[in-house]
């Protein structure tokens, strides 16, 4: 049973990572787009009279943005592609639950997105001489794990949600940059108006990002980090629970009505 599950995981991830590698759009999402946003951030900083940009937000934030863009596009367009190619019916009809397929795929996509973060981090260290001296490394790693977990939970929520609709491509426009704006990938949340900060509080990534920023700045105060980690984890679980509920709904609906192809 466990062996079969791991074989499924390995095969799914293998296929998913091959798709990511051979799809040139990956280069745009993981590397070019973050590079452009980071460059704009650096030039704006220079235009504002700052000699050195804030590397955490401008460069590493760009990498997190690349991870996020990659995840959103894959979570939405994978479903759209399955639908277009007639694969969705086969997946839904197979004995492996759709939720499991989506969970493994999204996990592979989140892991693939780490390439973007690694590239940004290397750029910060090698080009801009960013130093981790003074940073709270264990706390930063835990925050990063929570970012990945939060992205995974949102990713499977989106993937399940979009089985219901053909608007996958349109949803990207509503999710990719709005979440980047609300979570503060490229700037601290205090820059946002108060009402936007309130909205960003329902996104687990925003809490984990605050904890990451705090940790990279050397923050060791558990009274500050603890609640941020707790909220990031808790809200991620809510998204995960919602995706489980959605999965049941989606499966019931398409199997009872047999209308998957006409959605």
């Amino acid at each position, binding site marked *: 049973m466990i062996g079969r599950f791991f074989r499924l995981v390995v095969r799914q991830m293998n296929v998913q990572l091959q798709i990511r590698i051979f799809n040139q759009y990956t280069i745009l999402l993981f590397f070019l787009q973050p590079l452009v946003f980071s460059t704009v951030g650096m030039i*704006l900083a220079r235009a504002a009279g700052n000699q050195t940009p804030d590397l955490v937000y401008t460069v590493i934030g760009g990498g997190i943005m690349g991870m996020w863009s990659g995840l959103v596009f894959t979570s939405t367009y994978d479903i759209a592609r399955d639908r277009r190619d007639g694969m969705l019916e086969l997946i839904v009809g197979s004995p492996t639950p759709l939720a499991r397929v989506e969970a493994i795929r999204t996990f592979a996509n989140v892991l693939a997105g780490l390439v973007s973060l690694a590239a940004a981090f290397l750029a910060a260290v090698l080009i801009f001489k960013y130093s981790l001296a003074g940073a709270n490394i264990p706390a930063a790693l835990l925050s990063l794990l929570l970012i990945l977990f939060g992205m995974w939970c949102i990713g499977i929520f989106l993937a399940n949600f979009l089985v219901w609709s053909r608007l996958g491509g349109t949803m990207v*426009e509503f999710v990719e940059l709005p979440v*980047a704006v609300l979570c503060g990938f490229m700037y601290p949340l205090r820059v946002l108006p108060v009402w936007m900060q309130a909205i960003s509080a329902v996104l687990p990534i925003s809490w984990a990002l605050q904890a990451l920023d705090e940790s990279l700045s050397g923050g060791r105060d558990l009274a500050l980090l603890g609640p941020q980690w707790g909220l990031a984890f808790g809200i991620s679980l809510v998204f995960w629970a919602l995706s489980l509920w959605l999965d049941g709904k989606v499966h019931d609906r398409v199997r009872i009505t047999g209308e998957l192809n006409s959605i």
Partner: protein
Amino acid sequence: MNSAVLRNIRLYFMQAWFSYRALYAWNTPFTYFVSKFGFSFFAMLLFVFMGKYVGLGNPVYIVIGNILLIPSMNSMSGVSLAVADEKRFGALSYLIGSPAGRAPVFLGRALFPVLDGFITAAVALPVALLIFQLDLSKTNLWLLLGCVLLISFTTSGVGFILGSISLVNRDGWMITSSIAVGLYILVGVNFPVAVLPPFLRVISYGLPMTRGILAARMALAGASWAAVSQLVFGEIIVGLIYAAAGYALFRLIERRCLISGALDNL
């Protein structure tokens, strides 16, 4: 002679209308609206907050630049898709096999994306100016509208080139998207071109939009025709060069496919 001209004009408008309908045929008004404003609007917000964080007090430069980019994006992506989709939907073979004149067939694909982009910017600009309470008392309105329309036309040349590339490259949309994202740095949308490093400045002035966006900004600030005429003529010349290059590339690919008979296999 006259009937041939009339036939080509009719063909131009028919092609323009049908390619535009094909481009958006599957969209509901909701998805149409979102595809028009979604990425552009949220990218603008992102840049505004990035600017605020680094200490730029006034976001108007970024807001106006991003709105002026909308017709460019619309025109470039719309034209590129309109050409590339011929192949995607299997219509390219019929198009190339038909005796219709190539110029109206090809150039017709630009008309509605250009008008669409112009109207989008013409609607978005006053709304944004009202939100940010910009003083419009000195604005040279007709010159501003002319510049926005000009930007839409000149960027269609880039769309022609990218669309033609898409005919021979399965990842053509990735190239189009990459260039579209690169415009946020290159054409003076978020900051003046003057702050770019010299090698990027050279690329910037080699692109359509750069002069047009600068001219539109000047018109917004109240500049007269005399002040912006050089920029406008420069924009027209660069745009024509790109359109001619796009047309030449399309004809080259067409000739290649007629010889090999393998366009749909590429």
